[in-house]
């Protein structure tokens, strides 16, 4: 029964990672860049939700919507100001810029909200479910995380396969140049991708601080790195890959904590990533890239 408890909490943590990883993977697939600031957008989402609920006293649902709105705007703004001028630059330059953006967001949050951890009360109004005479407890947040992740995956799959913007996204990720020739606006597609990714980051942020209720300017950093790991693990650029990677990573982390060592759980997660990349250099569901000579 304890194993089941761990498994469920692994899946729920994994769902949050998956939502964050989706943002990484979509941006990578379309703009071919590692958006290191993505984790900090999560943190901003957490703070917005915190301010709306505790300072303004509005309902949790409103706070989630507000977080999504702010993060979407922020994501698009970051893209326009910092990344768009570097479309033609080497990927390392873009990466360092993203790191700069990450520093910026963390320190802006530090100024605005101070380094003191805020204790966040879960926005999820659902009570825990108790099964098997209370031996198995599933928290409301865990349930909502899994459901949110499922809805997001279904929604994204629909968006990408069925809508016009989705087709544009696929075209850009396959071949930017060809997409442009076919009349797809690269800039618009990338902006939309950032908007979607950042909105997802907001959702993930709220869920994350609901499940682990401590909010600091650095809150997004580690989950960001791990979700990024999850995206690479599943095959960066692949949406099912991000989902699979996120869930697996959550499970590995929680089971590692429970059965091996609390302190080494992160090390285990990263070790699994390394092993997977060595066996499949482009991740579990990643495409093999061909270099023509």
């Amino acid at each position, binding site marked *: 029964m304890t194993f089941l408890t761990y498994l469920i909490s692994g899946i729920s943590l994994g769902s949050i990672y998956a939502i964050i990883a989706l943002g990484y993977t979509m941006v990578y697939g379309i703009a071919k860049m590692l958006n290191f600031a993505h984790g900090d957008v999560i943190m901003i989402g957490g703070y917005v939700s915190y301010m709306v609920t505790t300072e303004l006293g509005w309902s949790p649902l409103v706070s989630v919507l507000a977080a999504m709105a702010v993060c979407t705007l922020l994501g698009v703004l970051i893209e326009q100001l910092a990344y768009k001028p*570097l479309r033609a630059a080497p990927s390392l*330059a873009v990466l*360092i810029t993203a*790191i700069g953006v990450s520093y910026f967001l963390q320190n*802006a949050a530090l100024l605005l909200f101070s380094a003191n951890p805020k204790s966040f009360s879960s926005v999820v109004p659902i009570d825990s479910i108790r099964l098997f005479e209370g031996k198995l407890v599933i928290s409301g947040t865990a349930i909502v995380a899994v459901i949110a992740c499922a809805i997001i995956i279904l929604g994204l799959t629909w968006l990408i396969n069925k809508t016009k913007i989705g087709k544009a996204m696929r075209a850009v990720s396959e071949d930017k140049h060809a997409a442009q020739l076919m009349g797809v606006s690269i800039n618009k597609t990338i902006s939309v991708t950032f908007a979607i990714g950042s909105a997802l980051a907001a959702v993930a942020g709220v869920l994350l601080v609901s499940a682990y209720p401590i909010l600091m300017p650095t809150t997004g950093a580690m989950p960001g790195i791990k979700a990024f*790991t999850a995206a690479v693990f599943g095959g960066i650029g692949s949406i099912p890959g991000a989902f699979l990677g996120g869930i697996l990573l959550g499970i590995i982390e929680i089971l590692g904590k429970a059965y091996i*060592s609390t302190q080494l759980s992160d*090390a285990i997660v990263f070790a699994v990533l390394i092993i997977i*990349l060595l066996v499949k250099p*482009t991740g579990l569901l990643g495409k093999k890239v061909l270099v023509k000579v």
Partner: protein
Amino acid sequence: MLTYGLVIAAYIILRILLAGGHVSSALQGQLVPITAYIVMAVSLNLTVGVLGELSLGHAGFMSVGAFTGVITSASLTSSVPEPALRLLFALIAGGIAAGLFGFLIGIPVLRLHGDYLAIVTLAFGEIIKNVVNTLYVGIGQSGLKIGMTSGNALNLGEGGKVILNGPMGAIGVQKISSFTAGFILILVTLFIILNLIDSRAGRAIMAVRDNKIAAESVGISVWRYRMTAFVTSAALAGAAGALYALNYSTVIARKFDFNTSILVLVFVVLGGMGNIRGSIIAATVLTILPEVLRAFNNVRMLIYAVILILVMLATNNVRLRAWFQRIRPGNGKTPVISGGGDGHE
């Protein structure tokens, strides 16, 4: 030559200022860390600028060197009482240990490229941090002992001493590092790296960076030269780690985390990829700057972030770069990233 001259002149000037008592105590405290960061930046430049592969785990090697250095120094306390000599042994041990780690980690890492290589170096850096956090090392009558549960479980016996105490880090470290030692380490690092770059092996490393397929086509073993650069870079980071650690009485593993790796990477990028002198200047300025900007402590890092973004935009945006070239004709040395282009058409 200019690079050596710059370092030597800076050292002499600082020595004179120190003798005259013109250096604030805060800055004095920064002298050894600055030298360590310079060595970190110069050595990372070998991987990132010269080899053209992004490493996000350089602090991991610093960590290996730091704790190896601390343990070496503690173990040699009685047999080598002379601090300078003990420091030398500690630096060498730290360098060798980190070089060894570099080799072992390089075996899997160097099979990958680009973003995948970067993420795996990040992963190794985090693994090293986590593992060091769980290590307990002590020295007792029966020599060095290592455990993973607690300091007491090491059973060191009478007169035993815990050197590395899990998450508490290394405690009771004898501070034997000195500014002069740091200065010498910089010179040694420069000697090794500048000579390496300007030799047959260095050309091979840069050939691999510029075009891997072409390098192979002229008979250069890509694996071998990638490994050469990676191990050299790791070993020097290890020595820098030992120098850094032996400057404090306590050292924790978290000091050498992802953020430190990124900090050093920022030195390298702002100083200019492959530009060794640039790395030295960037590491110095950016380590001192926060001290100078104490008054603006709150916005300091914000400014730092904005500068970082602006410099990247200014040096890599096609239009801005053209504009800069117009206002500064004939000026070459802007930190431009040379793409490790394999030419994925």
